[in-house]
């Protein structure tokens, strides 16, 4: 809401626009009320040294085709000569002349300056150059009757003013009007509030326009008042200037007064030409599906059965209720009698139509938030009073229609407010007698005695319904800054859950392994999942910003592959990335089967690199999984991938991305990958590791090499050795894998070093021979052959 200070001052002595300290106090008070001030702009400042001048004659110069010579007079002294490049001027025009020595708003100083050897003795100014708006298309032409030599600000009737742009929150419908802001501000600043009290009287012959409200849930009140003696003409300057400053274009006295009343009293209204109003009355009903209406903005629109129409008495639509009039309902220059509509519409209904049609107006923004359902009579008289300034014969006829439905909010709403509840929430120590001083000035009327008071809620604050709403008003007018600062005396302790601590541990491990964190967009393009050979079953956004970001990911893989491709295209190969983020597979439940996933991608590396990452995580988290290479998940390298099984649950996969998928994502390196269901991994918190004694006895190393068929996983051999070696085995490593000469085709040699040690004695050769024998017996069952 743009607030013109001189206009606001109509309703209280807030601040002199030229007193910047006072202006700042007003702006601060507005912010302290909850209407955040976005900007404070001084307007109407004039440039000293610019005076009105008359063009005596124009002259072209044979060597200059873009500029012409202009001879002007300021009424006194010699004729002055200036060069000018604008082409909208002619002899006899009155124009603003910046005289020599003038400093323009852009910092330029007007100096005597020659072109083609002829000096320019000043400059003719455009509106833009004078800071009067954006128009720089030509010289600002002034009224032909303007006296010469006058400061142009005086000639234009400019005065210094301040425009305050304040953000009105949704709970303050009243602050969409000057009077609402002034009421709140006057109370806050402790100054007198002077609302407009129209003195205009209803005097004319009774004249009633019949009103029928068909859909009362959408329109709860519709008043129509006949006003005759209207002459359509321009508004007086003061009104035109105020509307312009507020961002509205002055059109005619009737339209301008209508807008003025809306801005002042927050009562949107519409004046219909009674002579062209079909049947001389109104019918308010829902539109029929597909019903057409050309709105005031000139667009022919189609409406549905959920949009509300204002129709004339013949049921012809003439406006969209509370949003915009029909093009044909506009008053004309010939209008002499109007039917003035001031109505109250359902907030939700207006909002629905605005959302569906994207048709908005100053009126709809107000109705959507809730205007005063009882402000009509005052607004009608204010309308008449303001219009009578240009229409001296104006008459307001008695018999105005006032149709109401059961959905009209009650005129008197009240709520009990307990001072104890106020203090409990605000931490204050008010007594009940403190409440009236804070509430009465803003129209919340406090009555009764004792600790619980009855508060009548103002009709213009439909947002206020409960005790807590009144408590907020108390807090605002008391001042948030006076509430003090304390810290709750909590009896609970803070901390991360084990799950959250373990998640951080996972990050630490990955970062330590040189893997950086990416955060790709969780929204995929249609087809991306299929491109990654993943199931295309996914949840979609029904109102995406763009189609390329409309599918909820079911895997972190596509996003990370895109990130690798991006980096590769910027000559960064060998990039190592991880992501921890939610994925959203579809489900039949209340919500998707959302879970937190972890994926690691290592560009330029092969499957073993991913296995190494997995081993580090297992080692750190103390929770492992079976590596099952019998089936590779779709999209991963069929012979270089294993699923990770924890009990029956698949925990994830480790290996490489399939070559065809890499090609589809434009990744030209191999990519090792580890994918984990992090919820599961972190959810399985191990018990604290229990101490095992370390032996002080000498240890012996035993090297064993086995030939094992390729199709038997090394992991099985590993397990068999460990089991057979028993408790003497304290450490074991696979130190060589060999395929080639000396080893049968389809097999490989796996060499392990076993460190053997007893806790309580030195080992004998017999102990070591026992282990060797035991291991051999166990591994033969796997088809492994112990090499000598």
């Amino acid at each position, binding site marked *: 809401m743009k607030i013109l200070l001189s206009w606001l001052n109509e309703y209280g002595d807030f601040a002199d626009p030229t007193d910047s300290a006072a202006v700042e106090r007003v702006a601060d008070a507005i912010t302290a009320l909850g209407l955040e001030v976005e900007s404070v702009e001084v307007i109407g400042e004039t440039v000293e040294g610019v005076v009105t001048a008359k063009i005596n004659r124009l002259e072209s110069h044979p060597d200059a085709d873009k500029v012409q010579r202009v001879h002007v007079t300021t009424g006194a002294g010699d004729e002055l000569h200036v060069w000018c490049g604008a082409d909208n001027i002619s002899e006899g025009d009155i124009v603003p002349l910046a005289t020599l020595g003038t400093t323009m708003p852009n910092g330029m100083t007007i100096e005597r300056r020659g072109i083609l050897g002829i000096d320019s003795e000043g400059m003719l100014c455009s509106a833009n150059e004078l800071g009067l708006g954006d128009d720089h298309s030509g010289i600002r032409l002034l009224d032909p009757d303007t006296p010469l030599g006058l400061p142009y600000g005086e000639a234009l009737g400019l005065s210094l003013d301040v425009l305050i742009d304040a953000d009105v929150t949704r709970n*303050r419908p009243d602050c969409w009007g000057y009077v609402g802001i002034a009421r709140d501000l006057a109370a806050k600043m402790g100054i007198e509030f002077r609302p407009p009290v129209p003195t205009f009287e209803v005097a004319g012959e009774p004249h009633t326009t019949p009103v029928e409200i068909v859909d009362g849930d959408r329109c709860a009140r519709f008043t129509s008042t006949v006003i005759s003696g209207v002459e359509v003409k321009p508004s007086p300057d003061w009104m035109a200037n105020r509307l312009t400053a507020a961002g509205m274009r002055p059109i005619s006295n009737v339209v301008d007064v209508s807008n003025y009343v809306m801005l002042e009293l927050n009562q949107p209204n519409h004046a219909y030409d009674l002579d062209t109003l079909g049947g001389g009355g109104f019918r308010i009903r829902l539109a029929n599906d597909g019903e057409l209406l050309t709105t005031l903005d000139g667009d022919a629109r189609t409406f549905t059965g959920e949009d509300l129409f204002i129709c004339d008495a013949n049921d012809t639509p003439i406006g969209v209720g509370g949003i915009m009039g029909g093009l044909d309902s506009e008053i004309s220059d010939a209008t002499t009698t109007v039917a003035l509509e001031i109505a109250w519409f359902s907030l939700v209904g207006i909002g629905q139509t605005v959302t569906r049609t994207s048709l908005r107006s100053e009126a709809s923004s107000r109705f959507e938030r809730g205007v005063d359902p009882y402000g009509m009579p005052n607004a009608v008289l204010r309308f008449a009073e303001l219009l009578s300034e240009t229409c001296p014969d104006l008459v307001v006829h008695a018999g105005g229609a006032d149709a109401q439905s059961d959905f009209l909010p009650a005129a008197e709403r009240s709520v009990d407010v307990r001072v104890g509840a106020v203090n*409990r929430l605000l931490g204050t120590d008010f007594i009940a007698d403190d409440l009236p001083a804070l509430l009465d000035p803003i129209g919340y009327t406090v009555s009764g005695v004792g600790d619980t008071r009855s508060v009548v809620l103002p009709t213009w604050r439909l947002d206020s319904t409960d005790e807590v709403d009144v408590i907020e008003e108390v807090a605002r007018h008391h001042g948030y*800054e006076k509430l003090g600062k304390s810290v709750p005396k909590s009896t*609970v302790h803070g901390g991360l859950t084990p799950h959250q601590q373990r998640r951080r541990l996972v990050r630490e491990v990955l*970062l330590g392994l*040189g893997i*950086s964190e990416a955060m790709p967009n969780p929204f995929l393009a249609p087809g991306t999942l299929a491109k990654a050979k993943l199931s295309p079953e996914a949840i979609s956004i029904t109102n995406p910003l763009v189609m390329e970001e409309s599918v909820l990911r079911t895997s972190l893989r596509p996003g990370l592959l895109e990130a690798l491709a991006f980096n590769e295209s*910027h000559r960064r190969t060998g990039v190592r990335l991880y992501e921890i983020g939610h994925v*959203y597979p579809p489900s039949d439940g*209340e919500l998707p089967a959302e879970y937190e996933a972890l994926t690691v991608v290592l560009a330029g590396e092969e499957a073993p690199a991913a296995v190494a990452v997995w081993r580090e995580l297992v080692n750190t988290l103390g929770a492992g999984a079976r590596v099952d290479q019998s089936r590779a998940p779709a999209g991963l390298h069929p012979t270089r991938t294993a699923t990770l099984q924890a009990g029956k649950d698949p925990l994830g996969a480790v290996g490489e991305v399939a070559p065809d998928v890499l090609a589809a994502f434009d990744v030209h390196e191999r990519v090792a990958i580890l994918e984990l269901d992090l919820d599961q991994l972190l959810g399985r918190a191990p018990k604290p590791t229990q101490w095992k004694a370390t032996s002080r006895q000498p240890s012996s190393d035993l090297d064993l090499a086995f030939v094992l068929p390729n199709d038997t996983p090394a992991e099985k051999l590993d397990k068999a050795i460990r089991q057979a070696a028993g408790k003497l085995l304290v450490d074991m490593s696979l130190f060589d894998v060999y395929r080639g000469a000396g080893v049968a085709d389809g097999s490989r040699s796996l060499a392990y070093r076993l460190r053997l040690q007893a806790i309580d004695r030195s080992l004998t050769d017999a102990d070591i021979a026992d282990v060797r024998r035991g291991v051999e017996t166990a591994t033969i069952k796997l088809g492994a052959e112990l090499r000598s």
Partner: protein
Amino acid sequence: MITDIIAAKDAALADIKAAASLEDIVALTTRYAGKKGELAALKKQLGSLDSIEQKKAAGAAVNDAMMAVDVAIDARRAVLSATALAEQVENERLDLTEFMGAPTRGHAHLATQAWERLEDVFVGLGFRVAEGPEVETDWHNFEALNMPVGHPARGEWDTLFVDHVPPGGKPGSTVLRTHTSPVQIRTMLAEEPPIYVVAPGRVFRRDTPDATHMPVFHQIEGLVIDRNITMADLAGTIDAFTKAYFGPGFNSRLRPSYFPFTEPSAEFDIQRPDGSWIELGGSGMVHPNVLRAGGLDPEEWSGFAFGFGIDRMAIMRHGVADIREMFADDIRFLEQF
């Protein structure tokens, strides 16, 4: 005999002096000072001498010789050891600046760094960390937060809807959560007060990306529910956070605002040591309807909530000019932090 001893000693001392390596010293030790060495051999011959005087004199001479040889060997060994060590370390010289390669540690995402810093500050202030789903029911995201169906404020959230339909539910009743506030409801329903939690998380708006907005971004939400929690507690908690996170020279203030799920509602601003103010987030006393939706009696419990953007904290801290850079997954960006 004594002559032989002196000759042997002199020879030994000369050899020791001439020894060029620690290996020589080992050999000379064996040759002269060992149990089977030359001096030991002479000592064994002492018994063959005739008189006690001769034995004494020769014994003294041999002992003197042996001691002299031991001393000489120790001294020479020390010299040679020092030389050998000096030679070894000289040969092992490295120019360490040849090894100042790129660090290999990975880089946590800026949003994660800010997220964890915030968590740590709030944990220090006595909060636990709560989490919730990113795809939410309309009920948790709006209705339970005092925005029933048709509530005009819903329009301000630029909601993204998804096509998931719960059993028996209606299409359009599942959303990408527009704020972390649904976690308030989930926490209240799951736990008994007192509740002191923060809920960091990813949120979604139908917002065209620009230098300061992303449709997918991160927020942190705080919720306190206890007996007799007042608005002063809110102001004090915000202030404690401000000082803990930004530094002791920072201040905070509350200013009236409007959110459907709190009343009274407040924006909170922080003041830099230079006096300038930055708008940080929204807050307020938990609305009685929200407490009720969370299964709590507003007459028994009261509380406050607050929330603000995480990504913006990262941007402010590191001077990132465009938030979109943060989410481009460009390794050249990630490696900077």
